């Protein structure tokens, strides 16, 4: 057993990191395979943060990442004192947050050999925040290791890219995801295969689809929407339905996160401890809870936007399938269970229209990223899916 067991379908990256860990046994004089700043890039759901946490555990573990000792488990659970995991839960991370981070990370490790800082969404740092980090990224204290994660290299500033060693993840294959679902969550093979296919290599999404029936139903509804666009009013209804499905997906993620955070804070302030009346712990925890509520609220906003984007990716996969049937390519469909509807769509539309629809979804995604009003963006998208040449004719 080792910490790398949890990594799905990334043999090259694991190889790079195990070599680094082997070279890093002496923090005063690490070998060339180890360096102080890493940039882990890969598509959403490919397991960037899991990999970063595994690397941190392997660095701290006396046995180089056994996966069984307390050090490994606390690190991967986010509880190791010398491993700081930064999740940009809010919409963006500012210069003040970055300064705060620097002062915290420059302390000497208390129990481990390294001080590891993992930044899960480096792309969400503002450019001011990045500039604050530059110096310490370039010449960190001897004991400090940075692990930055981002969807792609283009998502971080060139000045960051040049100061980090890059590790690129690939999208895990369907069979790898399916196998992992079966091994780890004991999901039956048929369901695992469906979830792996439908999630297109997004591990977290695959798990949600495999374990949550609500998520499956909502996905189904989103994919059915192209067939419901009879008239303009129906487009608006479909847009509203897609938004509420995404909102529900976001809620099911955030309620889980919120509840565990709140419980953590209450515990940290002594809830359940002997000799402390609950009125006192409540009073102590109150301001921390208030602060947490604020970040939770902005995280919910961001999650809804993320889930809308994810639903749009599902729709792109749908039109990809349409395109496959239209061109007669011998490639398996992602949404094989909807073959009948896809077949109808493929025979009723011509190929250029399918490509225009695909482009409309891509431009809707760009508008979602540019903070466009979600209902309006989706309404416009549904109008374009119904009639992809609307702009050419009017």
């Amino acid at each position, binding site marked *: 057993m080792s910490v790398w067991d949890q990594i799905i379908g990334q043999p090259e990256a694991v190889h790079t990191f195990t070599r680094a860990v082997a070279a890093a046994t002496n923090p005063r004089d690490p070998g060339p395979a180890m360096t102080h700043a890493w940039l882990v890039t890969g598509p959403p759901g490919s397991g960037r943060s899991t990999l970063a946490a595994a690397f941190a555990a392997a660095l701290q573990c006396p046995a180089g990442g056994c996966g069984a000792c307390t050090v490994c488990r606390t690190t991967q659970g986010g509880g190791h004192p010398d491993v700081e995991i930064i999740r940009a839960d809010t919409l963006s991370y500012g210069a003040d947050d970055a300064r705060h981070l620097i002062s915290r990370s420059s302390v000497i490790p208390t129990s481990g050999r390294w001080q590891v800082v993992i930044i899960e969404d480096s792309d969400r740092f503002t450019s001011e925040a990045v500039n604050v980090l530059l110096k310490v990224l370039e010449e960190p204290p001897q004991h400090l290791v940075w692990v930055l994660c981002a969807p792609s290299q283009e998502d971080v500033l060139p000045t960051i890219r040049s100061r980090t060693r890059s590790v690129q993840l690939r999208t895990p294959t369907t069979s790898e995801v399916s196998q992992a679902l079966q091994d780890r969550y004991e999901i039956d093979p048929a369901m695992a295969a469906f979830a792996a296919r439908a999630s297109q290599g997004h591990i977290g999404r695959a798990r949600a689809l495999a374990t949550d029936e609500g998520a499956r139903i909502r996905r189904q509804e989103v994919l059915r929407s192209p067939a419901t666009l009879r008239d303009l009013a129906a487009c608006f209804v479909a847009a509203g339905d897609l938004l509420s499905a995404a909102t529900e997906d976001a809620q099911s993620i955030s309620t889980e996160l919120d509840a565990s955070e709140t419980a953590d804070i209450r515990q940290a302030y002594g809830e359940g401890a002997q000799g402390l009346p609950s009125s006192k712990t409540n009073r102590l925890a109150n301001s921390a809870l208030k602060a947490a509520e604020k970040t939770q609220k902005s995280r919910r906003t961001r999650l809804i936007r993320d889930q809308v984007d994810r639903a749009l990716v599902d729709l792109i996969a749908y039109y990809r399938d349409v395109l496959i049937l239209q061109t007669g390519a011998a490639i398996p469909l992602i949404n094989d269970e909807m073959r009948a509807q896809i077949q109808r769509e493929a025979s009723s539309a011509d190929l250029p229209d399918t490509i225009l629809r695909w482009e409309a979804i891509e431009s809707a995604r760009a508008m979602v990223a540019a903070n466009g009003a979600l209902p309006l963006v989706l*309404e*416009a998208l549904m109008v374009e899916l119904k009639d992809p040449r609307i702009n050419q004719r009017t």
Partner: protein
Amino acid sequence: MAKTFPGLTLLVGPEDVLIDMAIADIMAKVRQQHPGALKTEIAIGGDVDSGALAQALAPTLFGDVGVVVITAGEALDDAGVQMLTLAAAEVDPVNMCVVVHAGAAKGKKALTALRALSPPEISCAAMRKGRDTMSFMGSVMRRHDRRASTEALQVLYDAIGHDPRALAAAISQLCADVEVDPINEDAVRQYFAGVADVAGYQVADAVWERRVSDALGDVRWLSAVSGKASVGPAVTAAMASGLRVVVGVQGMPQGMSNDAVAQQVGMPAWKVRTAQAQARKWLPERLAAATVALAGLDVAMKGGLRGKSADPDQKAYALEKFVITTVGGGK
């Protein structure tokens, strides 16, 4: 000669025009009995401290009666309050002190101390838009011993906007120039025309009713009056919600009764009628194209796809282009 006024009066609130009117009233009242009464105005704060206040409150050599208006009463210190307390306690005051206090949290201590003396207090609270201001306009009319119809006041309010001082000035001009009594709508229109404040929903109404020139005028007016910065996502949001209503109504089956439609879309019947009139002006296809254009406009208002904040001129241009190309043209 008996001096029959209180030693201290409080004016509480930030509304300048009400304060001025209250001071004018007080002066008029005092001068009825003491025609030579002087008005001294001192603003507390900066170099003006309780020393200056003491000087202002001191009786003159000839025993003249005066009104001392103390503005920025929030800055009164303990010594100042002490002095005013003494002044208020005088049975036969030489001076009448009028303390103007904004009534907010700043200088609350001084206000509480002065209120404890239970002097007469005149409220000059900030005027809210709408009915508050309309009743203020009525009271200004009464000051001029004139009356005006509600419609006339509404026209004036629409033309000038929410600016109490400008409204008071306009009323005094009207009272001087207009002969008819009560002053009616037509008389007001003779002097004041147009609309001062444009709300986002007014632009939206003009857009979906396809009154292109009105919509364009509203947009220009919006950026001229409320500043270019006001042309932003609020306008597209208003248009989007207007659009949803039009689309919702258009999608209802033909021949469905108004009330049934109202129930279905969850709107009052009169609103359904307006929306139906709007819907008749659009072929579904044009409305669909408008939806796509509006979504693009919304993103442009938020700085475009690349997220660079566009300058206000570009935003205004994008909005006008939307109005002309999408709202104008054929059905």
